[in-house]
């Protein structure tokens, strides 16, 4: 992973000093709420319902075991002993004390971590595929480009006060695991016919109140222009994006209002001034960053022998886990492991301090001391030898980290909702609990096949309900909590926004509604047809009839 040099560290330490000063001015009344707001947000600090919420950046989801240990100790010392993995691969702490946040940031900086630009109207943490660098379907490892974007966007003087937040995602594989169509900018790395590296550029995707699938503005752009092009897009957005209404301020609204072609023209006008300028990526610059992401020192293993070792274990629970929570690796004899944060004792995406320590240890033992966070609110150990999988599984089981449901119905995405968030219409976590309790029969879940169920507590869509195969959205009706259900949303391969099934339901009705939808699917599916494919084949009517009939 990227290792900090003296300059990176200098910048972090100056940032901590700066924020300490800002906090002091705020506490002494020199800075008003309004002035302090953008400053604290750009340091990841929200003021929430019960306590402040602090979002810690995990650049494109990559962490060292040392960083995991630090997080564990911070959750013990500054919070209630657990953290939450967000859908944008960051960590959130729900209970830090305002006054102590500068100290917390100081401690984070000791392990090269920070909260820079994890919220506020600025360029946020760039996200990517949790299997970057190891997935067999990878075209180009996206991480060096994410790092280049991280550096370019960090404390960029021009873009710290944008009309609204700005999120970039990068995909380097055939199948998109980074949701690039629902980001302000989505980038897909690809080669042209001559084998030159470039990038497809999408703009104006997003969820929230107005879900939009991003539009292509460049089908292929030479990689050396990546940063100057991003700069041009951001400059157009910074100047023309709406600032009169925060619900209309995202770039998606601007792109829609202008039309993609006009928007592209405006970008090209800016870009003509920036192109081939200082921001042009030289081969050396790319190579320097790529050097940080060299392949791990893998052993040369004999795939058949490794498979034979693995086949010795015939414990059915292990085999289930092996099948669901591990996946193929570029290198023979290795697999990538999804560490489930979907245990019944915790909210989806929550991880305790002890689990963090445990995971750090397992990363050291089995996966070159690195771990990753995922968009599905799980974690990943990306480089595990197949012969170690049984030992790893045993250890994960002890720590409640081996729920064998990765990709299945109960591997839900769920926002913090009304239990924590002051914007919520409804409590989302109890709904996810109820669904998990109702569908606790793993064999049934396996039979249903992969299903993505996403829950948001309000239309801000932090739980990505629009692009869940099943989406659940908390709505408020005359002060009461209700939930709207949608079907057919999809993140990857021809992304789609789900269709609303009909009138909303009370929280207690939701498990039964889901059960009816699933029953209907089982009746309708043809052979091994996936849930999402059945919905797209038959439409939502048959499901509507069953649920409301």
């Amino acid at each position, binding site marked *: 992973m990227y290792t900090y*040099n003296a*300059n*990176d560290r*200098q*910048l972090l330490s*100056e*940032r901590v*000093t*700066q924020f300490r000063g*800002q906090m002091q001015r705020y506490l002494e009344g020199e800075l008003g709420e309004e*002035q302090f707001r*953008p*400053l604290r947000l750009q340091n990841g600090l929200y003021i929430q319902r019960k306590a402040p919420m602090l979002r810690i950046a995990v650049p494109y989801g990559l962490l060292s075991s040392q960083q995991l240990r630090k997080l564990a100790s911070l959750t013990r010392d500054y919070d209630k002993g657990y953290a939450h993995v967000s859908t944008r691969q960051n960590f959130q702490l729900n209970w830090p004390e305002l006054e102590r946040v500068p100290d917390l940031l100081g401690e984070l900086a000791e392990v090269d971590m920070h909260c820079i630009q994890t919220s506020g*109207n600025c360029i946020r943490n760039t996200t990517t595929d949790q299997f970057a660098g190891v997935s067999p379907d990878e075209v180009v490892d996206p991480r060096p480009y994410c790092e280049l974007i991280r*550096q*370019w966007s*960090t*404390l*960029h*003087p*021009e*873009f*710290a*006060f*944008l*009309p609204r937040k700005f999120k970039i995602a990068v995909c380097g594989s055939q199948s998109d695991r980074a949701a690039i169509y629902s980001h302000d900018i989505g980038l897909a790395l690809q080669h042209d016919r001559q084998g030159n590296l470039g990038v497809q550029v999408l703009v104006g995707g997003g969820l929230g109140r107005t879900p939009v699938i991003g539009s292509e503005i460049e089908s292929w752009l030479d990689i050396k222009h990546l940063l100057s092009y991003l700069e041009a897009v951001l*400059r157009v957005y*910074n*100047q023309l994006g709406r*600032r009169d209404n925060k619900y209309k301020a995202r770039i998606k609204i601007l792109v829609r209002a202008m039309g993609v072609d006009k928007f592209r023209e405006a970008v090209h006008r800016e870009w003509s*001034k920036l192109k081939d*300028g*200082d*921001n042009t990526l030289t081969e050396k*610059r790319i190579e320097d960053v790529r050097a940080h992401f060299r392949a791990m020192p893998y052993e040369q293993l004999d795939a058949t022998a490794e498979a034979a070792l693995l086949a010795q274990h015939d414990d059915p629970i292990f085999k289930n886990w092996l099948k669901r929570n591990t996946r193929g690796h570029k290198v023979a004899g290795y697999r990538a492991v999804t560490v489930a944060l979907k245990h019944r004792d915790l909210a989806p995406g929550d991880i305790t301090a002890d689990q963090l320590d445990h995971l750090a240890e397992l990363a050291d033992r089995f996966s070159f001391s690195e771990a990753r966070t995922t968009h599905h609110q799980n974690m990943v150990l990306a480089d595990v030898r197949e012969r170690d999988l049984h030992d790893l599984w045993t250890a994960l089981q002890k720590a409640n980290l081996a729920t064998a449901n990765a990709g299945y119905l109960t591997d839900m995405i769920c926002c913090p909702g009304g239990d924590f968030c002051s914007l919520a219409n409804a409590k989302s976590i109890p709904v996810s609990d109820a669904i998990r309790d109702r569908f606790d029969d793993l064999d049934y879940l396996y039979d249903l096949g992969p299903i993505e169920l996403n829950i948001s507590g309000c239309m801000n869509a932090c739980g990505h309900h629009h692009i869940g195969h099943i989406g659940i959205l908390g709505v408020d009706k005359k002060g009461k909590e209700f939930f709207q259900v949608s079907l057919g949303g999809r993140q990857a391969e021809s992304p789609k926004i789900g269709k609303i099934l009909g009138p909303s339901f009370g929280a207690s009705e939701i498990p039964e509604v889901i059960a009816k939808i699933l029953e209907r699917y089982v009746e309708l599916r043809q052979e091994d047809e996936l849930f999402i494919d059945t919905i797209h084949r038959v439409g939502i009517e048959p499901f509507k009839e069953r649920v409301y009939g």
Partner: protein
Amino acid sequence: MGKVWKDGDIIENPWTAADANNEGVPSRGVGTLDQWRADPTLTAVEIKSDEDVSDLTQSLDQLRLVVLKIEDFNDGRSFSQARHLREAGFTGELRAAGNFLQDQVQYLQRCGVDAFELSADIKISAMEAALSEFSVSYQMPLDERSAEISLAR
């Protein structure tokens, strides 16, 4: 008249502030964008956040002062305006005025602003400290001085 921080010195503002109601702009007066359009011989112009600087770039040689009037510190358009003008070759004084935060002055400076109109809300010593809050930066330099500290190459 008010005071201006410029290149490390605090000076009395030698210019009269822009006033849209002025019939003509006095000598050593700052014109609004409309007044400048009516009389392009003016040497000082004030640009509001929602105004387009591209007209100005036609006659930059003429201009000695551009004042970026920031009405709301959350409105980041002035940052782009500043870079726009500098990239177009403007070498005169580029001044920030209005409602900006001490915490923004280094960003403004790195976008090309070299003077700040001081208001009661900003302590001079604090502002000067804020100008050197960061000794390193990831972005490419706009001038030679920051080239030395840039990380980017």
